[in-house]
């Protein structure tokens, strides 16, 4: 048996997607021309699946900061901060993040994935407990394994279920660390943070909130769901990424916890990875400045999200959340999701297909992410393609006029 034979079933699935000529997991853009447009072959593609929430990837000031840093400081750091030293920018960005969140400490990681790996594996060791929302991102699950913590899942967004599971763990040794997300990346729904905070207090647990999809999106100042819910004092750690609303790459954690900096010599994903290059740090620093200085970006984003969400609901699609920049339409099965996705791409619209086990409840989803950089005309163009495709596949009624029924997400499992 050859080494990779164990992937035979996966290979069959992958090759059948390749054979269609449209493999959603192997899309290559020949050119990307703006936060909302790319080119494949001779076709212009409208981008509606890139998590580029504030559209800052082409912002002239962000580009200038990034280019300037590359010219001054070179293109790479060639090593980890622990072994090879920090650049001034690394520390400045950590201070800027701590200042933005009003926290004492900030720590920067080389990707958002590694931020979860680095924080969770360092916070919870072999004798501690991580209590995860069942719909947590893969990086949260992987981070839990890296630290050898005891891992318990609770039902998605269910404070009573969390309470019940903490009750069962009450007699056990070790710290209890609860992990939830702000906006969930697949369904686009948000966590009931106030209720989670009550449960956290009741059992003396710690709380980590991953704001990957909600930084710069939610909150009066863009500080995410924790700000919206008014629970900043009760959230012990906020984790996030630079690769969505900040348009770069990298991850971070902020906290008020005394002794936080010891994690720099305890967190393996922090210690044994090359640090972010100066151009990325400078670009993210400028993007963070823009996020703070231009609340209009966030307002535009939410206007666009509401326009798209309401448009899909009116057409009769089954959606799984309130109007957030992540908008997922439930497809009856994976095959229909692929067909829908490829027809949209043929029509010039790029979205995402999300399938189990990456999705909750076995749902097949057609996922879109809206940007502040989309024009209303682009949103309407996307809606018209969704309408055309949905009708052609018999998924929505010929005439519009249906409404969102959130419970359908549960019924569809």
């Amino acid at each position: 048996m050859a080494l990779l034979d164990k992937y035979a079933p996966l290979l069959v699935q992958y090759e059948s997607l390749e054979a269609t000529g449209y493999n959603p997991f192997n899309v290559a853009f020949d050119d990307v021309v703006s936060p909302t447009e790319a080119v494949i072959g001779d076709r212009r593609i409208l981008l509606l699946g890139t998590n580029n929430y504030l559209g800052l990837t082409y912002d002239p000031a962000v580009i200038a900061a990034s280019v300037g840093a590359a010219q001054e400081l070179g293109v790479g750091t060639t090593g980890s901060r622990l072994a090879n030293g920090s650049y001034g920018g690394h520390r400045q960005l950590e201070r800027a993040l701590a200042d933005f969140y009003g926290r004492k400490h900030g720590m920067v990681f080389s990707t958002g994935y590694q931020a979860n790996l680095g924080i969770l594996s360092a916070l919870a060791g072999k004798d501690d407990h991580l209590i995860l929302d069942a719909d947590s991102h893969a990086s949260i699950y992987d981070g839990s394994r890296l630290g050898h913590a005891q891992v318990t899942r609770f039902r998605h967004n269910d404070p009573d279920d969390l309470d019940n599971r903490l009750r069962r763990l009450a007699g056990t040794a070790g710290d209890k660390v609860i992990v939830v997300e702000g906006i969930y990346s697949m369904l686009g729904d948000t966590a009931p943070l106030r209720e989670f905070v009550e449960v956290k207090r009741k059992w003396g647990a710690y709380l980590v909130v991953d704001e990957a999809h909600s930084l710069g999106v939610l909150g009066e100042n863009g500080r995410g769901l924790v700000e919206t819910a008014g629970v900043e004092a009760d959230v012990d750690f906020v984790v996030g990424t630079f690769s969505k609303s900040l348009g770069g790459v990298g991850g971070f954690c902020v906290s008020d916890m005394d002794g936080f900096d010891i994690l720099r010599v305890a967190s393996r994903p922090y210690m044994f990875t090359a640090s972010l290059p100066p151009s990325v740090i400078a670009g993210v620093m400028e993007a963070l400045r823009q996020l703070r200085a231009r609340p209009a970006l966030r307002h535009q984003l939410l206007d666009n999200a509401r326009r798209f969400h309401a448009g899909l609901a009116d057409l009769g699609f089954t959606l799984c959340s309130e109007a957030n920049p992540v908008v997922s339409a439930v497809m009856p099965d994976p095959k229909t999701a692929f067909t829908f996705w490829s027809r949209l791409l043929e029509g010039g619209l790029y979205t995402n297909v999300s399938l189990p086990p990456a999705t909750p409840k076995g749902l097949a989803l057609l996922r879109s992410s809206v940007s502040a950089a989309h024009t209303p005309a682009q949103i309407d163009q996307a809606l018209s393609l969704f309408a055309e495709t949905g009708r052609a596949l018999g998924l929505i009624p010929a005439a519009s006029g249906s409404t969102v029924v959130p419970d359908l997400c549960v019924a569809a499992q």
Partner: protein
Amino acid sequence: MEQTRELVFGVLRSSLQNPIELSDDTNITEGLGLDSVAVMDFVMEIEDAFDISIPLDRIAEVKTIGDLVATVHDLKGKS
């Protein structure tokens, strides 16, 4: 142990969409066609049925339904 087995099989049957012949030797992923998340969801049902906590690392050791019954029995005994 027999009681535990009955209850585990019962929870499993009610979680499966299609009826499948179940035995102690049935492999949970291959035999039941469950993906990794479906297995974890099923384990949550078992936790509730027995009012116990089954840490995910214990699930990693579980291959067959018989293994699961033994794990549940073990954890139930400690609670």
